[in-house]
């Protein structure tokens, strides 16, 4: 070989190799999507822990339907999706569901349960939630509307419910201003300051009494009011705050004072006004004018809390979004953020918070990125040897709230249309079923719904409630009717599994169904019981 011959061949190659080697680095941080970066961080932390297989098409389909449309897919939808051979069908389905009108409704449902913890329902609140998600209102704007509601703007009035429902008395308890203060910290910053109300927190060093009291200075200052001409919902009147609030620890004699203050933030100085000049708009009860203070502690708190400058704010919503998608927060409990309780994946939480800020608190964008991750799309079938929950090496079973559970049951049993047409008073009307499902599956007021929680009352309801059993009786055009008409056990099994569980039965399951149907005296009852057994199964009851 001549000297140089090789060189002439090699020379043009060099830049190519160079570029190839650099490509991932160059393109990496610029073009790599958040979902890819999430998966890398999860894999890095998992190390040698094996990861679960990707979810099957059925698992994936059912999961995204429950998460983004608030109900299971139809049998027809499942059939089509399973038969679709295209490689990008999952990404396409995610796009399709994020463009669906049900996306905003479902988000509204989920945030309602998360934020209100079963305290009750309110139409204006729901409208506000739906409209906010529909418009993809940034989370910081939503938070500010809840923290310092502008009741006179009809489009925002519904946001009052977060505060006003918590100011309603229940039982013999006094108006729970401390509870409202606590929930502001929990829901918007991920810190439960309750134990720091009367003294420094005994187990969490970061939480000082001042952190509770600064927030309390603003939120104890509210009095519940009825709707009037300017505000069409229940609202709360903010009293004039002229001086700092005094507080002291029960452990010491020393008294301290604070003005309104975002936890861990700087105190807000209370400005002085000449008497009579405190109001931008004076309240007038007779004329139904609610008034507007020049210095509103609520507005001060809202603008300082719901902002990128407050690191707790972005991390809280990032953690809660992660929780909604994965069934477990990066920080657990969701409302106990402090230095001694670090996230399972610190870099990941930092990344989510930073990216969310960069995307101006665009929740739709964040949820879509999360939906696209392999982490979200993993199977709940454990890898060999199991997997600790905090590594997110497999999907975690999540609860299905009472409302999506009812929608799924009605859809699957083929009774939705009939039930919707019935008069409210009817024992089988949508309203009756709504009440029954809330009674059986929703938690009591003020109990967060965070995990799958089978209860005796739910089991009794599923086993014995006459309205529920009515759904699995044969009626023209319903699921049981359709199945009976199929006659052959294998076909019945296929259709029942597809309708209720969005998957095909295994051979073993088909055999189980066949032997069950053959043993029962009448096909009519037997098919109803088959549908019941699937409806009452753990698989149906959880989002897995």
């Amino acid at each position: 070989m001549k000297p140089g011959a090789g060189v002439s061949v090699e020379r043009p190659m060099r830049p190519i190799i160079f570029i190839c080697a650099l490509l991932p680095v160059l393109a990496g941080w610029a073009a790599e999507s958040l979902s890819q970066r999430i998966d890398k961080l999860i894999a890095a932390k998992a190390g040698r822990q094996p990861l679960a297989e990707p979810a099957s098409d059925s698992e994936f389909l059912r999961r995204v339907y429950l998460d983004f449309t608030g109900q299971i897919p139809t049998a027809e939808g499942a059939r089509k999706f399973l038969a679709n051979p295209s490689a990008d069908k999952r990404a396409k389905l995610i796009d399709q569901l994020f463009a669906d009108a049900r996306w905003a409704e479902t988000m509204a449902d989920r945030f309602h349960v998360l934020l209100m913890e079963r305290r009750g329902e309110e139409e204006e609140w729901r409208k506000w939630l739906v409209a906010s998600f529909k418009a993809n209102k940034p989370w910081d704007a939503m938070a500010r509307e809840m923290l310092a509601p502008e009741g006179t703007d009809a489009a925002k009035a519904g946001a009052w419910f977060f505060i006003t429902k918590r100011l309603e008395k229940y039982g013999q308890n006094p108006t729970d201003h401390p509870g409202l203060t606590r929930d502001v910290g929990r829901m918007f910053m991920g810190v439960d300051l309750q134990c720091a109300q009367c003294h420094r927190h005994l187990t969490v060093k970061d939480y000082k009494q001042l952190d509770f009291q600064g927030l309390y200075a603003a939120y104890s200052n509210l009095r519940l009011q009825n709707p009037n001409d300017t505000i069409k919902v229940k609202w709360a009147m903010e009293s004039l705050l002229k001086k700092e609030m005094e507080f002291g620890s029960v452990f010491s004699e020393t008294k301290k004072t604070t003005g309104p203050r975002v936890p861990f933030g700087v105190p807000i100085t209370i400005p002085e006004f000449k008497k009579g000049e405190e109001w931008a708009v004076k309240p007038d009860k007779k004329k139904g004018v609610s008034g507007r203070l020049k210095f509103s502690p609520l507005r001060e708190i809202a603008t300082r809390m719901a902002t990128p400058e407050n690191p707790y704010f972005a991390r809280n919503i990032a953690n809660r979004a992660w929780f909604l998608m994965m069934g477990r927060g990066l920080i657990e409990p969701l409302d106990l953020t402090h230095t001694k309780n670090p996230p399972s994946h610190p870099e990941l939480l930092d990344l989510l918070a930073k990216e969310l800020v960069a995307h101006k608190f665009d929740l739709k964008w964040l949820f879509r990125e999360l939906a696209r991750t392999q982490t979200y799309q993993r199977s709940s079938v454990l890898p060999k040897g199991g997997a600790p929950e905090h590594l997110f090496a497999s999907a975690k079973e999540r609860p299905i709230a009472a409302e999506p559970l009812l929608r799924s049951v009605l859809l699957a049993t083929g009774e939705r249309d009939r039930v919707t047409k019935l008069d409210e008073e009817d024992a089988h009307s949508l309203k009756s079923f709504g009440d029954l499902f809330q009674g059986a599956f929703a938690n009591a007021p003020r109990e967060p719904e965070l995990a799958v929680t089978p209860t005796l009352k739910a089991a009794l309801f599923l086993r014995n409630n006459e309205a529920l059993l009515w759904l699995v009786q044969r009626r023209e055009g319903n699921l049981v009717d359709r199945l009976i008409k199929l006659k052959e056990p294998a076909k019945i099994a296929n259709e029942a599994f597809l309708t209720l569980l969005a998957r095909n039965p295994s051979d073993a399951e088909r055999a189980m169904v066949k032997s069950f149907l053959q043993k029962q005296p009448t096909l009519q009852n037997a098919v109803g019981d088959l549908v019941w057994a699937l409806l009452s199964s753990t698989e149906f009851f959880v989002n897995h």
Partner: protein
Amino acid sequence: MNPLCKPNEHALSRRQWLGGMGGAAAAGALGGLVSPAVGEVLKQKEKQVLFIWLDGGMSQLESWDPKPNTQFGGPFRSIPTKLPGIHVSELMPRMAKKMDKICLVRAMRTQDNSHSAGVPRIQRGDPKNRGVIYPYFGSAVAQLMGPTASGLPPYVWVKPGSGGFKPTDAGFLGPKYGALAFGDGQPPPNFLRPATLSPEQDTARNELRRAFNFNYAQPRRKANNEANTYVFDTAEILLKRREIFDTSKYPQKEKDRYGNHLLGQHMLIGRKLLEAGCRFVKVNSYGWDTHGDHFNGTVSLVNRFDQAFAAVLEDLEATGQLDHTLVIAMSEFGRTPRINGHAGRDHWPEAWTIALAGCGINAGAVIGATNAQGTFVKGDEYDIGHMFHTWFRALGINPDAVEFDNGGQPLPIAHDDMGVIPGVLA
């Protein structure tokens, strides 16, 4: 010492209980349910609790701690009891004969004199304010000890009025440790199998459900399916004990012995629930808040209590159950020695009595005393925190070693400045 109930013997941890629950659930899944429970529980001699709550405040002066012929003594006499030198009100002739079976603590001094604060704080053991809502004693026992081998719900409550699931009793432990209340002695909604469904059909459909669940749960985390299996099985076990709630089938003689009044009938249902294997049975009686016409009211109230309490003790003793059942009879406070202008007695947490019997309790002991007029405690006085320590010890749970776990925060199960009341434990 009672050989069956050595305090400290088995300090139960939460982990052990959860393990036990998993076992019970697995047994349910493995074909068939635990056999009818009476025998099982008796055989296992598992510790249980009968908690009798006399809501509104029973007068100590017309019951356990009479002061006849004194300024505040009221019109009733006292009568001698089985215990030499110990007298109770003449309104309790039956219990007078059974005083050797129970233990009285006559030196209770508690903190609350209002119902709204007293009822929950007393039943929560009035722990120091830790910014969390403590569980009622029943929820605490349900969490610390779990259900018995019967698989029946661990905390049940027989009461007049509304029934259903009462999650709030559980405080920070979470709703699943709440009470299952049998309002007016009736079972919860959806308790009975509908008439349209035959038992055979019910069994068959549930077998199919279990088989589906088994397939589903096999490759996944077990906890959710185990919990689901457990609640479905509990529903079935409850159903098998439905005769408990059909008091029309009870022998008339038995009903008469407990008394043909709500407290008597509810006590009888309570006893059956204990026999069936519920861990903790609370029986409620209302109407003890006698601010007016106290003495007339008290005659019937105390008489009914005397009858029902004596009957249940007699039966628990006859079956041997008393040896492993802790029995507690109490209110949120006592009543004022001073008689008000309406011939009533008001709320008095300063000096009152709690009655105990059974498991681990020093039968025949009378602990502490009030002064001659019954106005205050003479000598050592005890708060409800002391009582919680004593109860937990009687159940074999060491409050110095066992803690609640509130999402990572350890919390004492009883007031950590207090301890056992001397002389109460066997």
